[in-house]
């Protein structure tokens, strides 16, 4: 009868050949109060299993909503940074070129003005020479 069946089930249980429903039957059987003394030793085992199933995960998990959005955000930030860098390099190059041109222009202007200065100074001296020539002419004419 009942007890006989439980003993058989226990035997099967220890050989791990019981089905899940049979194990449930054992668990309910051992959860009751009156268990024959020769089977009492099995009770804690099954009681523990039913009890262990009751254990709950109580810790609150912070929901990481930001994780996904932040990752996307970082991705786009890197794209933007690269774009900015490229533009920066491009315009930087352009600016440098412009500056070089300006510099060359101003240097040339300086050189030219130097030349012009010296040249005009030369012509001034030549003007003196002209004066000399004029005077010579005057002297010649008066004689």
């Amino acid at each position, binding site marked *: 009868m009942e007890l006989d069946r439980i003993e058989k089930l226990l035997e099967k*249980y*220890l*050989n*791990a*050949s019981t089905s*899940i429903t049979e*194990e*449930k039957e054992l668990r309910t059987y051992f959860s009751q109060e009156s268990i024959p003394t020769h089977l009492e*030793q*099995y009770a*804690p*085992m099954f*009681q*523990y*299993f039913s*009890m*262990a*199933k*009751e*254990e*709950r*995960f*109580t*810790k609150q*998990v912070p*929901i*990481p909503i930001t*994780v*996904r959005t932040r990752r996307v955000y970082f991705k786009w930030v890197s794209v933007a940074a690269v774009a900015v860098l490229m533009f920066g390099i491009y315009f930087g190059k352009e600016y440098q070129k412009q500056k070089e041109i300006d510099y060359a222009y101003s240097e040339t202007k300086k050189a030219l003005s130097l030349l012009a200065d010296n040249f005009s100074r030369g012509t001034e001296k030549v003007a003196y020479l002209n004066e000399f020539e004029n005077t010579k002419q005057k002297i010649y004419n008066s004689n």
Partner: protein
Amino acid sequence: MPFKDKLYRLAKRLLVSTEEAEDATQEILMKLWSKNDNIGKYNNVEAFAMTMTKNFCLDRLKSKQAGNLKLVHSNYGDDNSSLQKQVEANDSISWVQKIMEELPEQQKMVLQLRDVEEYDFDEIGELLDMKPTAIRVTLSRARKTVRERLMQKHSYGIG
């Protein structure tokens, strides 16, 4: 997540310490969350999560042992969850817990999955990457060990 308790119980079975198990469960849930987009691709999310938990805990244990930071097995008694109170009410039931802690990891997991979570052999096989016959052998061994140790305790008459 409907199966987070299962993950937690498995983690606790393996890691013993409540805090460690909570951290592990949290870690797994976060990982699952970050995979939120393609989670539909896995045909069995629960099994996937359980496998993740198993691997994570075994990794933890390995790193603990390598790092000479072995888990303190005595630190689980100081929380006052309802389970703990219930367990204290019946001392011999808490023995089962202690006996299970001493089992090898494989047996621990099989016993946990089968007798506590009531998974069938196919699911366990999928989770632990074992053949059904191997599971049966492991399970039988684990159950017999638990029974024998329990009987020893009884015959010493401590409880």
